[in-house]
């Protein structure tokens, strides 16, 4: 019998040589006359161990990592003989970093072959859809609402309410739109799930379709993710062939089909109304709300627009019941959040866990501190529009309300860690710069404010009338916060103001930390 070897095809694994490793395994195995079957999977999300390779054994899948091409011969030897190896990590599920997670959404990611509908079904796929079919629209809405699921894109709006609004809207056509424009730095959960378990997203969107009465879905994926585009397209074709998309899906009376649309490098298109404009073939200019997309969305029709992770949470909720999902979490943040640990961290990757874990646990304990070995100084949570938190706020639990109470946000769950070499003036300037580059231009506070913000922070860096300009930046931030149409202009003040508030020493005429560093 041939040995089953699992090698990720996730973009993060490819970026550190997974394709070369796969090729080397084939070559070495052929040379040694060892029959092997190589299965390309998604990633388990232990990014510092990538490329992480696994072999099927009677006792479970044994992992090795990080494997380089030079290691392949000896790793294969260890696999064949079940012998020791320096890179041998034991049974994958037993690796403490993985074992302490609660993987509801990412249960299959890194485990199954993302191109195989059969593999998806064999691992519990489409169970949620089948139950949804038997429940009917009203009962599904009840489940989604009871689960407490809130929009995982960052806004945290209750998914059940959004779906109900679209269900009740009367129209000749309705749409399901999946927002896969994951532009926040430090986030990669959407990418991982699209590459590692694409049928999950399809199933979630299909359930949304049968619930609200929509027959067409779009998934808008950013162009920076070519591998995710490829994986989703392949999965859609396979789902159609398997009767899971198209007319009378799964033998039911419902029809639902979907297609991938690719973005073109505009960060603002992650904002839902801008995304809809882009889908319609226009400039990604933000729309004023109301009307809500739930009433007048894509092509003016009622539209459910949710993030990838929101749709990906749905099949579990339907399959296992709303209560099972809602039993996890704290306060009004129910269920789990796929948290992404990134930047200067020893153990970076995808960590799905119930809401409530503290920032300190995530950074120090789970993330293992910085890979540079220097002290952690600042942590940006929630992407380029998220606040920078100092160590003093490490007791903040991962929860929508707890972060908001401290002038921060959890956003899409990305955490970027900086060591003590960071210059917070530069980070504040970058936040404004990024907003200036990416502003859609519709509203003045964002379009003009961001450019003036860059200039004013520049003056502070150059030591020009520092205290006056600091006051000006704060005033400008308040204008942007209150006067912008969408989260781009409205939330850019978060990183800027948090840098000013928590790292004030960097903005003094001659920052003491810089003196020490130079």
């Amino acid at each position: 019998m041939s040995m089953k070897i699992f090698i990720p095809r996730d973009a993060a694994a490819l970026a550190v040589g997974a394709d070369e490793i796969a090729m080397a395994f084939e070559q070495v195995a052929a040379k040694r006359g060892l029959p092997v079957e190589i299965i390309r999977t998604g990633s388990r999300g232990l990014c510092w161990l990538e490329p992480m390779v696994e072999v099927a054994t009677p006792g479970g899948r044994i992992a090795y990592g990080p494997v380089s091409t030079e290691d392949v011969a000896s790793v294969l030897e260890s696999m064949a003989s079940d012998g020791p190896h320096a890179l041998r990590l034991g049974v994958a599920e037993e690796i403490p970093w993985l074992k302490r997670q609660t993987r509801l959404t990412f249960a299959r990611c890194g485990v199954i072959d993302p191109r195989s509908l059969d593999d998806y079904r064999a691992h519990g796929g489409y169970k949620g859809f089948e139950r949804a079919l038997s429940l009917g629209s009203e009962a599904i809405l009840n489940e989604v609402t009871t689960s407490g699921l809130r929009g995982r894109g960052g806004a945290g709006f209750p998914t059940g309410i959004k779906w109900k609004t679209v269900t009740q809207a009367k129209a000749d056509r309705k749409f399901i739109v999946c927002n896969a424009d994951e532009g926040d730095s430090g986030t990669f959960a959407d990418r991982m799930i699209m590459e590692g378990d694409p049928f999950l997203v399809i199933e979630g969107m299909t359930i949304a379709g049968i619930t609200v009465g929509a027959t067409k879905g779009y998934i808008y994926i950013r162009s920076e993710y070519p591998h995710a585009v490829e994986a989703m397209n392949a999965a859609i074709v396979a789902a159609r062939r398997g009767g899971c998309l198209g007319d009378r899906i799964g033998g039911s009376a419902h029809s639902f089909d979907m297609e991938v649309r690719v973005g073109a490098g505009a960060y603002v298109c992650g904002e839902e109304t801008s995304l809809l404009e882009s889908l319609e073939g226009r400039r990604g200019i933000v729309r004023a709300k109301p009307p809500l997309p739930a009433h007048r969305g894509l092509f003016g029709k009622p539209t459910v627009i949710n993030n990838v992770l929101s749709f990906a949470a749905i099949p579990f909720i339907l399959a296992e019941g709303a209560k099972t999902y809602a039993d996890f979490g704290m306060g009004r943040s129910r269920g789990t959040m796929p948290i992404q640990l990134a930047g200067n961290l020893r153990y970076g990757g995808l960590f799905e866990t119930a809401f409530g874990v503290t920032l300190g646990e995530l950074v120090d304990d789970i993330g293992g501190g910085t890979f540079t070995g220097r002290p952690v100084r600042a942590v940006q949570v929630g992407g380029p529009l998220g606040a920078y938190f100092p160590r003093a706020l490490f007791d903040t639990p991962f929860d929508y309300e707890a972060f908001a109470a401290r002038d921060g946000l959890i956003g899409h769950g990305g955490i970027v860690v900086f060591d003590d070499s960071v210059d917070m003036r530069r980070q504040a300037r970058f936040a404004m710069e990024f907003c200036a580059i990416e502003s859609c231009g519709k509203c003045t506070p964002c379009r003009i404010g961001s450019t003036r913000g860059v200039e004013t922070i520049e003056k502070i860096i150059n030591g020009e009338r520092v205290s006056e300009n600091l006051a000006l930046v704060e005033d400008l931030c308040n204008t942007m916060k209150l006067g912008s149409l969408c989260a781009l202009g409205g939330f850019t003040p978060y990183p800027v103001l948090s840098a000013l508030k928590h790292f004030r020493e960097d903005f003094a005429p001659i920052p003491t930390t810089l003196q020490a560093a130079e």
Partner: protein
Amino acid sequence: MTAVFELWDETRGMEIIAEHASQEGATLVILHALQEAFGYVPEAAIPMVAQALNLSRAEVHGVFTFYHDFRHKPAGRHVLKLCRAEACQAAGGDALAARAEAKLGVTLGNTTADDRVTLEPIYCLGLCATAPSAMLDGRLIGRLDETRIDALVAEAQR
């Protein structure tokens, strides 16, 4: 691997536009398809897209210029994109970007005088836990350090 593009040809352009024009909201789809074929979106194609979709030229031009991805002229033979977002900054990306700029003699967003390399910033490749990262002609590279960035620059210059 260098991408090989077709030379601009009006009939071929028409063909590509016609292939996608019946889709709802087809403008971006068509611009992507044109760029994929020719390596950029030739100015001559803009009025053709407008006519096919019954839009004004200004509207199509507006869409074309709004998105960072679309080029109005061909890129260099190789395109090296360096991730410049926060996670890569935290992992030492600033110094590596400066190093690549110095080696190539161009700043981010520009093409070398010999048209060999276009160096571009990209805001997040989603490889934030294996940062800093880059993309050379569609190939992803993570855990960049000085040695790796030098090798990438050298490869792009070949």
